[in-house]
């Protein structure tokens, strides 16, 4: 079943975002216009403290808030062929990729990690809307497959946060083929009897909604998230009529029976813990901010049979540190090296 012959090595991840924002910065809520102190906004997970508007949140910031003590192990994703179609529109696709990498500090549009959430071991995947609109291409497909395989291997549930404008056109048909590919990954989880919970965030559209984002055992959305197959503009052009207020927003979908719940981001973690633990038949969790779990030992963190290059990487790379200090450089360097390690392992 393991199509990825490359093994995947998790590693401790720094909990601090690479791009530190000065403490005294203000930002304006896109919805109500209130000026919010940066610290206040990030403490509230980028939800406006005045009107409750949910702004974008990066996968890393989300994971920092989701996992106990902000500690998670990033799961490496096998790198796909870059620019498989040699796609070029007004820009070359590799240039667009590089620009997105530079702007976000991330490799691609999905981050996969494992760790504990309210002392509940989980695998989580989060899509990054700021990376080329979170678009689903080969990498995102690989990320979902890596997440599902890891979940099956460790018998953990998978929680996936979706956010995407749809498929990545620059990968043409191969982006479309991520619909069946990701669906196979979800089937692996279901066959293993593991919960698959989808949290739909703004926006989740197109081929993403029409595949893995709608196949959850439990479907939860963030308030006011746009969730659709065809976007409102396309529909208005087709039917030539004005769409009703709130059309295709989370609450509208809930009313139409397409979701289980709409839950504000600040309450999401507790709800995920509650739901996941019930699905797994575990006792109720102690809620709130738990201290960081004990550091994962080398033996646990490694999958069997690491290659020589990967072992070298562990020794030479950053030692897993359970208490990262402010200013710690994130492990981006390690990520690149780990990816290289995979290639050699293959």
């Amino acid at each position, binding site marked *: 079943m393991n199509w990825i012959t490359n093994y995947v090595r998790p590693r401790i991840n720094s909990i601090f975002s690479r791009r530190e924002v000065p403490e005294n910065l203000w930002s304006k809520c896109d919805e109500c216009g209130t000026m919010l102190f940066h610290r206040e906004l990030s403490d509230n997970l980028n939800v406006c403290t005045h009107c409750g508007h949910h702004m974008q949140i990066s996968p890393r910031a989300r994971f920092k808030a989701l996992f106990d003590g902000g500690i998670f192990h990033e799961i490496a994703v096998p790198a796909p062929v870059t620019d498989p179609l040699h796609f070029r529109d007004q820009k070359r696709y590799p240039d667009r990729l590089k620009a997105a990498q530079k702007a976000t500090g991330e490799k691609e549009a999905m981050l996969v990690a494992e760790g504990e959430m309210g002392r509940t071991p989980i695998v989580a995947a989060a899509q990054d809307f700021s990376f080329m609109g979170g678009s689903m291409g080969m990498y995102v497909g690989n990320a979902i497959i890596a997440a599902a395989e890891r979940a099956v291997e460790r018998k953990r549930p998978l929680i996936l946060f979706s956010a995407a404008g749809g498929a990545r056109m620059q990968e043409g048909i191969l982006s479309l083929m991520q619909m069946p590919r990701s669906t196979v990954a979800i089937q692996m989880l279901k066959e293993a009897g593991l919960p698959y919970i989808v949290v739909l965030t703004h926006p989740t559209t197109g081929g993403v909604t029409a595949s893995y984002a709608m196949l959850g055992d439990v479907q939860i959305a963030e308030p006011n998230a746009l969730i659709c*197959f065809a976007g409102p503009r396309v529909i208005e052009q087709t039917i030539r009529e004005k769409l009703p207020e709130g059309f295709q927003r989370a609450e509208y979908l809930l009313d*139409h029976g397409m979701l289980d719940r709409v839950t504000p981001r600040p309450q999401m973690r507790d709800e995920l813990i509650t739901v996941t633990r019930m699905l797994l038949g575990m006792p109720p969790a102690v809620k709130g901010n738990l201290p960081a779990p004990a550091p994962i030992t080398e033996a646990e963190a490694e999958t069997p049979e690491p290659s020589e290059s990967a072992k070298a990487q562990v020794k030479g790379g950053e030692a897993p540190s359970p208490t990262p200090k402010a200013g710690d450089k994130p492990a981006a360097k390690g990520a690149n090296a780990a990816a290289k390690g995979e290639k050699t392992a293959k």
Partner: protein
Amino acid sequence: MERVPGMTNYLDFEKPLAEIEGKAEELRAMARQNEDMDVEEEAKALDKKAGDMLRDLYKGLTPWRKCQVARHPDRPHCKDYIEALFTDFTPLAGDRNFADDLAVMGGLARLGDRPVVVLGQEKGHDTKSRIERNFGMARPEGYRKAIRLMDLADRFNLPLITLVDTTGAYPGKGAEERGQSEAIARSTEKCLAIGVPSVTVIIGEGGSGGAVAFATANRVAMLEHAVYSVISPEGCASILWKDSEKMREAAEALRLTAQDLSKLAVCDRVIPEPLGGAHRDRTATIAAVGTALEEMLAEMDGKSRKELVSARRKKFLDMGSKGLAA
């Protein structure tokens, strides 16, 4: 070759051809009214000229021209294939929930002696049937009907044949309210789960998620001028080029032809079309599809349910691992 007399639907790039074929026909019509006229020699010369031009035009069709051929109104549609290739066709209707979506047709049928479930999108052939069938753009109930028929195939061990021809799933208000995304996702999931041989032929347009929901099969064949894409060239052009008139460039970049998709291992088999496209000889096209279907099903004879499911999953998991070098 079965020429369609007075064929009216010429594509824009076929205009010069239309003139010559029109002239030849005019001459013959005149001769029919005037017995003294002998035009046959002249008409034959025009025929030859037209034939040469047709060959040139279709020798290296650009991706955009292929899109046009794939959408040709006279191209055989799902219904034509079902009527010509199958016997005992018994249409089955409805999703048992909301409605019967006529954009999707399907039912029990025999291909040769073999009982099968056949399923496809039907665009319609005139104004009335096009509206009735919503131009082949299915709503959630269409995908849910498909799921129901796939279940039937699975339960009774009948091979599944799908014929794909759709611009895409219908972008409408009701369709969204009734869960277009979920319906497509479940249909793809069902395609991957069934323990029977599944074969898809993309006979015209394979439009995005609306096509994937039918085309996630053990074998995916495409007609020579069919296209299969994540987005229409017009849509892609308006997003990436900010100009929907750049559809030629977009069609080129998307690699949506059967030939490119074979290189990417998305298409397993290209079924040749008659010179000038499927619409110039519908009978021959339909027969070629029939042969391909029988051969592809025969390749899977004797395979266990488990083997069929795991081979299908592997095929999709492996897809794209080599890019154009595949």
